[in-house]
């Protein structure tokens, strides 16, 4: 059954790639250009026209459940650490795909979405079926400020998802040791943090060193096709969070309808514990030193 679904999706994507893309919404927000493009059954959110790394969020109009994007599937690997997150914080909304999927998977969990650009929130609601209810909330705020205010209110989250980077620009204050420390404090006792990042060349080392400085060794899953990677850390460090293989079976049945192969993901997870692929003396990014975008373009 799973194979057929996969094949069907593949065929659909293939078929749609021959169809001419049609821009159905185009607007210049305070922060970027926002484009909504229809290509047959596939609808995508884009933040810039010319760059190749700009597709923020895509979904199939006929099968909104299916996760089209590889990185959203990769993010699901985090559930291996904690299969029942009760309070979830998503920084960076995009089309709202992640929030929608998690709201279906965990209808009783509380999800807070934080997005800096009001135009993105509007587009997610109008064109991507992003839904909100008493459990799913959206805040138009800078991610760092949201976390600082949440700390003051003594809130905590079981799962924090950082998805505020796109291939073209990194908000540098969301990639410093101080910020990660704040995010770590916001985690519940066995809380976890997943970060979807695009670091290339020099930034790869600096980003890794910064995460390691705050969380110790971490897990990561890479996408073979581009520079995309998911960094997965937990409040208690790696040693206390060895993946319970029972979780794989538990999650498998639930995630298959979303086109996520959790067993495959489990095999692809790499720990930095015995796999550190950046120089030991790499400078950690701080609020005082955070030239992330300059480092990423070198």
């Amino acid at each position, binding site marked *: 059954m799973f194979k057929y679904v996969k094949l069907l999706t593949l065929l659909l994507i293939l078929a749609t790639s021959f169809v001419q893309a049609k821009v159905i919404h185009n607007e210049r927000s305070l922060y970027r250009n926002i484009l909504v493009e229809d290509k047959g059954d596939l609808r995508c959110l884009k933040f810039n026209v010319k760059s190749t790394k700009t597709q923020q969020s895509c979904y199939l109009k006929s099968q909104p459940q299916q996760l089209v994007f590889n990185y959203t599937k990769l993010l699901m690997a985090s559930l291996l650490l904690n299969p029942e997150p009760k309070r979830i914080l998503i920084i960076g909304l995009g089309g709202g795909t992640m929030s929608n999927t998690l709201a279906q998977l965990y209808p009783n969990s509380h999800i807070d979405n934080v997005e800096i650009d009001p135009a993105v929130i509007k587009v997610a609601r109008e064109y991507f079926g992003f839904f909100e209810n008493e459990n799913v909330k959206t805040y138009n705020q800078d991610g760092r400020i949201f976390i*600082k205010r949440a700390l003051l209110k003594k809130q905590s989250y079981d799962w924090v998802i950082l998805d505020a980077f796109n291939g073209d620009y990194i908000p540098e204050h969301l990639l410093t040791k101080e910020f990660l420390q704040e995010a770590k404090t916001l985690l519940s006792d066995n809380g976890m943090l997943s970060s979807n990042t695009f670091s290339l060349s020099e930034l790869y080392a600096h980003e890794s060193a910064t995460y390691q400085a705050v969380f110790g060794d971490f897990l990561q899953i890479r996408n073979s096709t581009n520079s995309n990677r998911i960094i997965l850390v937990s409040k208690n460090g790696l040693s206390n969070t060895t993946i319970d293989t029972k979780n794989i079976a538990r999650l498998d049945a639930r995630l298959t309808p979303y086109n996520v192969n959790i067993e495959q993901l489990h095999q692809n997870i790499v720990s930095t514990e015995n796999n550190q692929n950046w120089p030991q003396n790499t400078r950690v990014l701080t609020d*005082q030193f955070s030239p992330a975008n300059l480092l990423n373009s070198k």
Partner: protein
Amino acid sequence: MTKKSNYSNIFIYLLAFTSGFSIMGIELLGGRILAPFFGSSVHIWGSIITVFMLSLSLGYLLGGKLSTRSPSLSTYGLIFVVAAITLLPITLFSQWLMEAIFLTVEDSRYGSLLASMALFFIPTVILGMLSPYSVRLLVTSSNESGQVAGKLYFVSTLGSALGTIVTSFYLIMWFDINVIIFSFCTLLACLGLLAIFINKIKHSHASELSHV
């Protein structure tokens, strides 16, 4: 004598260049200093640019006024030294100050405006005073006043352009923000003290000459 005054004019232009360089370097760093507490939304830059423009405008007014009271190279140098001292709190107390503002002001627009005010208003007013004061020191006849003012704005704004590009392209990639600001302070203070020193030598030299 004309050659000597030429040298002192070049020195004044150099100082004006440095002040333009530092102003924009600091303005650019302002965004990074505020980001951890007030985010990187568009209104952060709104706050910073507003405060810099406001304080420069007041600085021009005050500097012009001050230049009518026995203008001298040593007062000019003193303004540099004071500017350097008033910049120091940015490196020393900004965390504490921004935290206090963050806790009291919920709206990050007014929070960032207040924080920019607290951190950048006084030093930028003082740096702004230097422009009209430089014109006063350089102008010797009303005929050339426009040309001198034009040259001075050319030099100091060129300094601003360079301060912006050097800080954003290179300095932030090499150094901590505090190290960069501290270097600006040191540079301004040293040039200011040099101006005071040169003025002293000139005066003692002049008085020696008059004795002969």
